[in-house]
């Protein structure tokens, strides 16, 4: 809102009343008291060569401003198969957006712009989806029916996403309990948004049509931590197939949150799992706040069915033109509308999320539904300095405003005014019910903003452009043969190997287990060494260095093989890895030269110990015998690497020093 004063007295007071605490201070009991429940919808792009319903290459992205052609579309709601309109669809139709698509020839064909019906579903994608459906232990359907899921926001030029259920009713194990999986579907990815200003929204069509699978869990996750764990487990699980895309945006989560007395609210497009705890924490308290507001309204004796807002246009004379927001709005040719909200005193400044109040709930909807870009409104507590007080009184009188009412003033163009007024009134009326079902967009700071009304089953429609695809027993058998090991047994394996726990996430996320098993059995590598090499060392290297060409994990196997054949000690791999990662095409002999490896026998190395011992005693800075050993080790480390084990070297030095 820009001018929102969230540090006001009422904000602080209501925040306390809601019982909002910092996420770090929250405990399991915090959430059980709230009746917190969470479910996940995990979208994971599949690593296929082509898109799901056309033959465009998948996985290539354009620079957002680089495009070959532009087209414009508008979306209209249509009826569901059962003959009903969907609420989201109707809301989105109100917004009257001009939707522009920026098309790049290399990533989009006439299918993406809905000028050609779909081609046959990508079999490669279906095979991977079946594999995941089996890992999730779902009941696999007999026939895949492509369904259209309506999206009128323009994120898909057809106005719907083609999607199909592969399996239902599966489960994953999580900390001794089973988390139920509602369904696994295969679907096409949507466009990427470039901008959304006023009535103009722009998308690129590069991501559109990339195959993805969506896994939906039951809302049985009872704390934010459990939610993130389930998310991680599902991510490891899909990655274990090795047939999914990784990288920014390749996996995205929708998180459903509700509390006792609240409603299911969907937080959309969470790209980082570690954002889930804060987002769900804040949403739980937002719902609590809305329930408190509901209570207040009831206490004030207000009736939802009788409640009505009144409005009046404010003339430019009434606005104190010396100041801020309203002055700028008038200069830009907006109309200024004042709305009276009966009985809403102190509601608009009521805490909802850190940094936001109930007024934001209205402002967010004005932006999305009526296309009023922010800042778009002011509310009673903010009027001072913006309005000539005498004129404000006049406006209040015209509105028939009473002592216990609240007012907002918004700016709008003539065409959007009607929708804007309806939007304000609608959101206030919804406050009587508590938490309206919504889809909300996550922000980087862990709060959310309104995105759209939560869609229901009414937005589904059979795709009349494609025939059903039978899923035969044979297809399932083939998928079963391709199935990787279960994630829970991988956890057990890592534990058995005694690998430090802090390496698990990285190892499972990048699906290193099969590779590790091969290295351990083929080259007798120490599991702990290997685990640390990957989970600590490789992870560090990945975060700090840039490879000159793509580093493929399989390289690690060839590296072990090379060292094995040369009969060198595995420890040298640590040193080599940094170079190999940066220059994956360099031959291993050259890598050895780069890290200054010199072949030497144990005797040759140890022959230096006595000289070094004498030198140390000459220049010694500490009487600690350990310091002496460390100093000598330091000098011999480079020479010893690959030739003898560090443990052996240390032992030998200790013997000489203690002698």
């Amino acid at each position, binding site marked *: 809102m820009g001018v929102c004063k969230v540090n006001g007295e009422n904000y602080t007071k209501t925040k306390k009343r809601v019982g909002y605490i910092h996420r770090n201070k929250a405990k399991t009991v915090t959430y059980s008291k709230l009746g917190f429940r969470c479910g996940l919808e995990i979208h994971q792009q599949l690593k296929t060569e082509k898109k799901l319903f056309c033959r465009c290459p998948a996985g290539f992205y354009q620079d957002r401003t680089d495009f*070959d052609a532009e*087209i414009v579309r508008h979306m*209209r709601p249509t009826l569901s198969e059962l003959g009903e309109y969907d609420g989201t669809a109707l809301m989105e139709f109100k917004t009257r957006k001009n939707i522009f698509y920026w098309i790049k020839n290399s990533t989009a064909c006439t299918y993406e712009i809905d000028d050609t019906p779909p081609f046959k579903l990508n079999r490669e994608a279906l095979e991977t989806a079946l594999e995941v459906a089996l890992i999730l232990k779902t009941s696999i359907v*007999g026939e895949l029916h492509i369904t259209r899921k309506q999206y009128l926001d323009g994120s898909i030029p057809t*106005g719907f996403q083609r999607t199909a259920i592969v399996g239902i009713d599966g489960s994953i194990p999580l900390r001794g309990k089973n988390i139920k999986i509602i369904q696994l579907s295969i679907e096409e990815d949507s466009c990427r948004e470039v901008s959304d200003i006023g009535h103009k929204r722009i998308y690129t069509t590069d991501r559109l049509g990339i195959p993805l699978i969506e896994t939906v869990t039951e809302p049985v996750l009872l704390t934010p931590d459990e939610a993130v764990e389930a998310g991680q487990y599902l991510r490891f699980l899909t990655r274990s197939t090795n047939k999914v895309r990784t990288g920014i945006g390749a996996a995205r989560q929708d998180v459903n949150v509700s509390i006792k007395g609240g409603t299911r609210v969907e937080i959309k497009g969470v790209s980082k799992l570690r954002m889930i705890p804060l987002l769900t924490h804040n949403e739980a308290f937002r719902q609590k706040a809305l329930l408190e507001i509901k209570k207040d309204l009831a206490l004030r004796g207000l009736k939802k069915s009788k409640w009505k807002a009144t409005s009046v246009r404010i003339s430019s004379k009434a606005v104190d033109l010396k100041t801020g927001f309203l002055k700028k709005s008038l200069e830009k040719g907006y109309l200024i509308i004042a709305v009276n909200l009966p009985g809403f005193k102190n509601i608009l400044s009521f805490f909802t999320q850190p940094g936001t109040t109930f007024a934001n709930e209205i402002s967010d909807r004005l932006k999305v539904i009526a296309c009023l870009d922010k800042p778009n409104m002011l509310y009673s507590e903010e009027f001072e300095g913006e309005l000539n007080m005498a004129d404000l009184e006049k406006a209040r009188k015209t509105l028939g405003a009473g002592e216990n009412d609240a007012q907002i003033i918004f700016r709008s163009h003539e065409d959007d005014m009607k929708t804007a007024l309806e939007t304000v009134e609608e959101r206030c009326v919804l406050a009587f019910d508590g938490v309206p079902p919504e889809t909300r967009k996550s922000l980087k700071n862990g709060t959310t903003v309104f995105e759209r009304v939560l869609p229901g089953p009414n937005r589904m*429609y*059979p795709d*009349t452009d494609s*025939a059903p695809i039978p899923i035969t027993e044979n297809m399932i058998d083939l998928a079963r043969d391709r199935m990787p090991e279960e994630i829970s047994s991988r956890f057990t394996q890592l534990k058995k190997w005694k690998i430090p726990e802090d390496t698990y996430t990285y190892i499972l996320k990048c699906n290193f287990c099969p590779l590790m098993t091969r290295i351990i059995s083929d080259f007798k590598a120490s599991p702990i060494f290997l685990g640390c090499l990957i989970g600590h060392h490789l992870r560090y290297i990945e975060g700090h260095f840039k490879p000159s060409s793509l580093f493929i994990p399989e390289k690690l196997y060839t590296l072990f093989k090379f060292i094995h054949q040369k009969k060198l000690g595995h420890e040298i791999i640590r040193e080599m890895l940094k170079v190999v990662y940066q220059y994956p095409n360099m031959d291993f002999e050259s890598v050895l030269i780069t890290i200054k490896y010199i072949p030497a026998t144990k005797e040759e190395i140890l022959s230096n110990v006595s000289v070094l011992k004498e030198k140390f005693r000459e220049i010694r800075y500490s009487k600690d015998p350990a310091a002496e050993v460390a100093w000598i080790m330091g000098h011999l480390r480079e020479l010893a690497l690959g030739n003898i084990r560090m443990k052996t070297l240390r032992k030998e030095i200790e013997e000489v020093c203690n002698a």
Partner: protein
Amino acid sequence: MLEMFKGYRGEALTVLKKFNIRVWSETRVDTTRGNFKGIVLPRSENDDDRHLVLKLATGYNVGIAVNTITNMKEFGYKKANYKIPEKEFPMTKGKPNIKLFGTGGTIASRLDYRTGAVIPAFSPGELYGAVPELADICNLETEKLFAVFSENMGPKQYKILANAIGDEIRRGIDGIVIGHGTDTMHHTASALAFMVQNSPVPIIMVGSQRSSDRPSSDAALNLIHSCSAAAYSDIAEVMVCMFGPTSDEYAILHPGTRVRKMHSSYRSTFRTIGDIPLATVEKDNIKPLKKDYRKRRNDRNVEIYPFFEEKVSLLYYYPNMHPDIIDSLVDNGYRGIIIAGTGLGHVNKPVYKALDRANKKNVAVYMTVQTLWGYTHMFVYETGRDIMNLGVIPAENMLPEVGYIKLGWTLGQTDDLKKVKEIMLTPICSEITEREPYNGYLILQGGIPEVEDFLKHFHK
């Protein structure tokens, strides 16, 4: 078949009967792959008999293989009532009165459980429910004449339509809109152009390339544009009104005898061939692109000529065509043949004798060009002159389909081949034009820098 088992047959029907389950019943299905719960939907007749269709509570449909079913139990019943909310179309005094004839096609359609595809649906109330903007443009009356896909439109329908249009014009209507499937819209357009002459009001044909059951459908905008053109355009001709670019921007009014569907699925599929279109339509703004069109009048002196001879054929020539193709048409009693010849209007030597035979049997044979753009010029090469000597008459720059319609219409009026020739070669409504403008022929070639530049700056 019983409504209760709609679309099911064979194995699937046996299973439904075995467990006594109806279509639309909420059912629990136990299978060897797990258990499913949902509404049993009707099945498309073209799909196999080995699966049932179930709508899950989430709105998704899934198929269940009947040979995996171990048990089924009905626990509820919910029949779909697919209906566009009908609202009475408001009449405003002073607004032009427009008549919308429905013939079928995707302009207004809904789901058909029999075929799984979409079927036409249509009434002013439904239209108003779906496209309320129409009420801002005109007073709309509708009449359903047929409910057929455009490939099933033929001479019988052309005549009924022409007579119905004539009646409406004499009754005093301000404009006519005809909803039509897009595949053969240009055939019907040219038929109407010949059958309905001297119309005082616009006659607009319209359809849609994306069915109206999808949010991105072009149906609503096409209806808005066509009603607007019918109500306010000054052009009193038979026209096709469809998307100009694929973007939701403006429509083009194409002359009924020079328009052709040029892409199997694009929204902007209709193009005027060999000339430029008559006008563009953007909301209520109609911008003429040509000056020499027939103007709207206040009189009601429309002339209706509902004639058509069905024994006419359109022959698309290809190298290596054998004479027996033409012989068999003649032997089967065809009275007229339009040839779409190569280049300037040519066929190969082997068919000459068949053409000669056709000529001697009083079959009217006319030559058009399969290049679509350009005129027949049969004097340029010897081939052309030879062919003309066999009685084949070049039809100037008449489009092959238009030639077919016009020959059918002409032979419906007279047997006299001299008279036929006179009617065929006398332009009625720009099916033959004297001049081809320099910008008539325009096929952009993608990839070329200047075209790519154009595509970047203008909506295709």
